[in-house]
C-alpha cells in the first residue's frame, strides 16, 4: 500500500458518542473501556454503558448474542452515556442490525466487511447485504476488511494460533477509532504489557494490530474526517474510571475503615448486584468477610448475626432478593441493629428483565415488610456517587441504629464514569454507637436523646449480657412486653427515629433555576439523563426550569415542601409506573404533581424528556 496523504479535515467537537458492537467473543467491552480510559486520561469527561446479552455463550453471529459498549466523551460535562451514536463500530451483521437505529443519520459506521458472509447475514436475518442494497445510504459507511488486514499485520509474528489472530481484530478497530479522535495509543499498549506479561507474543501481536488500524485510518481516503474533543474542565485531583457496583463496594470498604469496624457481607448472587459480592470477595486483606450464603434470607440473616456481634454488616441483592429478605429486614428494624441492604434494581416484576434497568422497587423498599416497619431509604444517582451513598448508608446505620436500604440500579451499577478519588481521610467521621464497657444501670433500649438511637452492646462485652428478639419489647429493658401502650409507644419511637434522620442529612438542592415555571423531580439513577435534558432545555433559552433530584427518600429532606412551593408546575420522572410520585402525593397532599414514566427496561431518552417538559411549559 502506498502512503498517500489525502485531504482529511479536522473538526473540533464538544462531545462524541461511540458504540462498539459485535459478537460476545469479539471483545467489545474491552475495546470500549480502552477507548473510554484513554479519553479520560486525555482529560475528557466520560460516561460508559455496557450492553451484554443475557445468554452467557450465545451462538456466534446471532442477533441476541450481540455485545455492545457505548462511550460518551466530552470537553464538556458528560452526565449520561449518550442517546444517539456518532460512530458505530459493527464487527458483524448482527451488530449492525441491532444497533443501527441508534446511529444519527449522516454519521459514521465502521464495518468489518470480512464478517458480512452469507452465513452471518442469514444469522442476522438480513435478506440482502445491507452494504450492497443501499439501505445504509444515509450513513457514512467505512468498509474495512478488518479480519484480513489483521491477519496480514500478524503474518510475521511467531507463536500465534489462528484464534489469537482473529481475536485481535478488535484492536484494529480501536486503532482506527484512536486515529479518528486523535487519541494516543500509549495507554492501551501499556495495558497489553501488563495484561500479557507472561505472553510476550500477545503483547507484540496486539500492539501491531492496534498500530495497523491506526495507520490504516491515517492513510485511508475512506475516512474523510478526524475529530478532536478537547479536555473537559474538571476539578483537579487524582481520578480513575469506576463502575457503579465497584464504587458501592468501595464505599463500604471506606466506611468500615473509618468506623474502625470489620466489614461483613452476606449475599446470594443475582444480576445486576453480583459484582458487589465479587468485588468485596477480593478484599480479604482488609479483613472483609464475605459469605456467599445459601439464599437471600441467609444472606441477610448472616448479616444480622454479624451486626449483632459488632461488624459493619451489609447484604446486597436485587428486587427478587429484596422480597425474600423482607421478614429478616423487619427483624433488624425491630432489633434496632445497624444493617445496610443494597438493592441494585432491575426490571421487574418477578424475574422481569434481569439485565435491564428500572426503578420499580421503591415502594417495596419503603413498605415491603409486615407491620409498622420504617427504615431509612436512600438512593445513589451516578456510578461515582455510589461510593458516597454506600458510605453514607453505613454512617447512617451505625449512628442511628436502624437498617438502611440503599437503592441503585442496573444503569448506574454497570455504567462507569470518572471518579475523583476520595481518600478515607477526607471522608466524614463515623461514630458507631458501640459500647465496649459496662455502664452502671444500662438498659438495652435506652436511647440517645437527639437521634433516639439505642446503644450497640456486642457479645463478648462483660456485664452487658442481654437478649433481643422480634417480639415487641419493653421500651427500656427490651424484655418481651405485650403491654398495649408500650407497643404503641415503641411503634411511634421507631417511626420518630427515622423522621429525626432529617436533622442529619443535607437539604434538597435545585440545579439550574431555583424557582419558576417547572420543577423537574427525579430520584436515584436517572440523575444524568434528567440533568442532560434540563440542561439542553435551558441552553435553548427556556427560563424558570429547575431540577430537584432526590437521594434521600425516607426521610425526605427537610426543605422538600419549600422547594416544591417555588415552582408553578412539578413533574416527577421515574422509570416505573409512578412510585415516588405516590409518596410525594401522600406527604404533600394538595399539590399537583405531573408525572413522566417509562417502563421499558431502558433509561430515559433526551428527546422524550424535553418533549414532555415543553408540553408542560406550553
Amino acid at each position, binding site marked *: 500500500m502506498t502512503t498517500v496523504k489525502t485531504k482529511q479535515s479536522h473538526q473540533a467537537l464538544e462531545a462524541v458518542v461511540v458504540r462498539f458492537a459485535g459478537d460476545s467473543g469479539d471483545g467489545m467491552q474491552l475495546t470500549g473501556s480502552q477507548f473510554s480510559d484513554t479519553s479520560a486520561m486525555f482529560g475528557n469527561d466520560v460516561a460508559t454503558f455496557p450492553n451484554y446479552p443475557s445468554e452467557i455463550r450465545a451462538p456466534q453471529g446471532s442477533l441476541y448474542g450481540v455485545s455492545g459498549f457505548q462511550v460518551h466523551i466530552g470537553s464538556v460535562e458528560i452526565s449520561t452515556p449518550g442517546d444517539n451514536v456518532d460512530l458505530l463500530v459493527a464487527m458483524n451483521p448482527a451488530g449492525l442490525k441491532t444497533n443501527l437505529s441508534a446511529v444519527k443519520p449522516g454519521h459514521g459506521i465502521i464495518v468489518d466487511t470480512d464478517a458480512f458472509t452469507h452465513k452471518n447475514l442469514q444469522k442476522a436475518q438480513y435478506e440482502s447485504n445491507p452494504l450492497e442494497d443501499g439501505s445504509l445510504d444515509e450513513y457514512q459507511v467505512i468498509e474495512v476488511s478488518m479480519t484480513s488486514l489483521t491477519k496480514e499485520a500478524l503474518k510475521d509474528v511467531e507463536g500465534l494460533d489462528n484464534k489469537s489472530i482473529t481475536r485481535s481484530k478488535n484492536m484494529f478497530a480501536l486503532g482506527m477509532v484512536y486515529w479518528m479522535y486523535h487519541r494516543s495509543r500509549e495507554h492501551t499498549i501499556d495495558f497489553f504489557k501488563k495484561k500479557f506479561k507472561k505472553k510476550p507474543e500477545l503483547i507484540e501481536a496486539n500492539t501491531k494490530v492496534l498500530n495497523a488500524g491506526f495507520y490504516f485510518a491515517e492513510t485511508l481516503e475512506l475516512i474523510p474526517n478526524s475529530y478532536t474533543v478537547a479536555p473537559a474542565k474538571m476539578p483537579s485531583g487524582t*481520578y480513575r474510571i469506576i463502575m457503579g457496583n465497584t464504587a458501592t463496594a468501595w464505599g463500604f470498604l471506606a466506611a468500615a475503615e473509618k468506623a474502625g469496624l470489620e466489614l*461483613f457481607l452476606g449475599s446470594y448472587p443475582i444480576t445486576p448486584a453480583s459484582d458487589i459480592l465479587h468485588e468485596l470477595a477480593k478484599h480479604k*486483606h482488609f479483613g472483609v468477610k464475605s459469605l456467599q450464603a*445459601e439464599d437471600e434470607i441467609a444472606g441477610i440473616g448472616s448479616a444480622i448475626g454479624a451486626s449483632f*456481634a459488632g461488624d459493619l*454488616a451489609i447484604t446486597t441483592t436485587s428486587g427478587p432478593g429484596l422480597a425474600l429478605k423482607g421478614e429478616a429486614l423487619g427483624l433488624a428494624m425491630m432489633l434496632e441493629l445497624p444493617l445496610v441492604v443494597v438493592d441494585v434494581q432491575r426490571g421487574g416484576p418477578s424475574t422481569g428483565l434481569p439485565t435491564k434497568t428500572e426503578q420499580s422497587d421503591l415502594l417495596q423498599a419503603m413498605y415491603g415488610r409486615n407491620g409498622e416497619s420504617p427504615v431509612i431509604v436512600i438512593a445513589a444517582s451516578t456510578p461515582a456517587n455510589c461510593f458516597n451513598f454506600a458510605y453514607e448508608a453505613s454512617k447512617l446505620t451505625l449512628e442511628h441504629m436502624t437498617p438502611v436500604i440503599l437503592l441503585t440500579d442496573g444503569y448506574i451499577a454497570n455504567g462507569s464514569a470518572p471518579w475523583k478519588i476520595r481518600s478515607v481521610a477526607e471522608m466524614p467521621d463515623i461514630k458507631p454507637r458501640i459500647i465496649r464497657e459496662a455502664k452502671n444501670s444500662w438498659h438495652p433500649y435506652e436511647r440517645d436523646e437527639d437521634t433516639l438511637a439505642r446503644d450497640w452492646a456486642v457479645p463478648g462485652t462483660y456485664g452487658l*449480657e442481654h437478649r433481643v428478639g*422480634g417480639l415487641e419489647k419493653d421500651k427500656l429493658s427490651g*424484655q418481651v412486653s405485650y403491654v398495649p401502650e408500650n407497643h404503641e409507644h415503641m411503634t411511634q419511637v421507631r417511626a420518630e427515629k427515622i423522621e429525626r434522620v432529617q436533622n442529619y442529612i443535607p437539604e434538597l438542592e435545585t440545579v439550574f433555576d431555583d424557582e419558576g415555571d417547572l420543577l423537574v423531580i427525579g430520584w436515584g439513577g436517572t440523575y444524568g439523563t434528567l440533568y442532560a435534558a434540563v440542561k439542553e432545555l435551558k441552553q435553548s433559552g427556556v427560563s424558570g426550569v429547575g431540577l430537584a433530584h432526590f437521594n434521600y427518600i425516607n426521610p425526605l429532606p427537610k426543605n422538600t415542601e419549600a422547594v416544591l412551593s417555588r415552582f408553578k408546575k412539578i413533574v416527577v420522572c421515574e422509570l416505573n409506573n409512578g412510585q415516588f410520585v405516590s409518596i410525594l402525593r401522600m406527604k404533600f397532599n394538595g399539590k399537583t404533581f405531573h408525572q413522566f414514566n417509562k417502563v421499558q427496561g431502558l433509561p430515559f431518552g433526551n428527546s422524550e424528556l424535553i418533549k414532555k417538559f415543553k408540553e408542560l411549559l406550553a
Partner: protein
Amino acid sequence: METAERKYTFKDFSSDQEVRWCPGCDDYVILRAMQKALPELGVKKEDVVFISGIGCSSRFPYYMDTYGMHSIHGRAPAIASGVKLANPDLSVWVITGDGDAMAIGGNHFIHLLRRNLDINIVLFNNEIYGLTKGQFSPTSTVGQKTKSSPYGNIQPPFQPGELAIGAQARFFARVGGNTPKEMTEVFIQAAKFKGTSLIEVLQNCPIFNNGAFAKYTDKAVRADKQLFVEHGKPMIFGKERDKGLVLNGLKLEVVTLGENGVSEEDLLVHDAELEDPTLHQMLVRSEYPLVTGIIRGFPDVTFEERAAHKKEQVKKDSNFTKTDDLFFSGETYEVH
C-alpha cells in the same frame, strides 16, 4: 474462647425472666441441663450467645443470662453463622425445633452442617408444632393425628440424624428429654467439639404430642430399649447389660451375651470418629435399640479455620493495608 477465671454455677446462667413453658414440658429439663453444662466449659459468660428461631423451644434464650437473640422462624443457623464469623471467639448455640430446623429452616440447617462452623445446635424434637398449637411437623410419624392431619399424617418423616449426616454433619448426638445427666454431658462434649455439633433432644410435649417417645424413654423401658453409645466402648445395652449390637452383613443385629457363644469381644465397639458415616447412619436409623449418646464426632477442619487461613494467604500476597492503597492503585490519572 478465653477461659473464665470466674467460677460459675447454673444460677449465673439463669436470667430474671419467668419461664413460661407448659408444666411438665421437657423444655425445662433442657434449660436446666444447659445451665449446668455451661459452668463446666470454662467459657466466660459474656462470650456465650444463644440464637433461636421461633417455636416453644425458641423462647429458650430469654431464660439464659447470656447474650441472646430470639430471631425469626427457621433462620437461626444463618444468623448464628454471622455471629460466629464476626467473632470466632464466641461460644455460639442455636436453639431450634423440629419445624424450625427442618421445615421452614431446612435450607439453612443443612448448609450450616455442610460448612462446619464451630456452632452447637440443640434441636428440640417433639414431633409436633408446639407454639402454633399442634400441627404435624417434618418429624411427625405417618398416621399421627394432629390438628392439621385429623385423619392421620401422610407425610413420611425426616430422621434428623440421617438428614444431618447426609448434609455432612461431623457431630451428631441424640438424648432423651428426660435424662438430664446424659444431656448435660452431651452438651459439654458438643461444645468442646470443633465444628458444627447437632444434638437432637427427644423432647416430650405433654400438651400436643404426649408420650411420643415413651416407648424408648419411659423409665421402665429405657434401659432395655435405648443403647447409649460411648466412643471406644462396646455397644451393650439392656437392664441386665446382656444385649449388644453386632454387624451382620450390611445390617445391625441385636445379640444376647452368653447366647450362642456370643461374648463382649464379638460386639461392635463404638467409633464416633469414623469419617465414613455408613455405620453412624445405621445407628441413627436403628429402632431397636434406639441409639442415644454421641453417635458421630468426626474431627474435621472448621469453616472459620479455612477462612482464617485464606485471609492470611491473601494478606501475605497483598500490598494493600489501607483502602487508600486500593483506591489509588492501578489505572489512575491526574487532572490539573
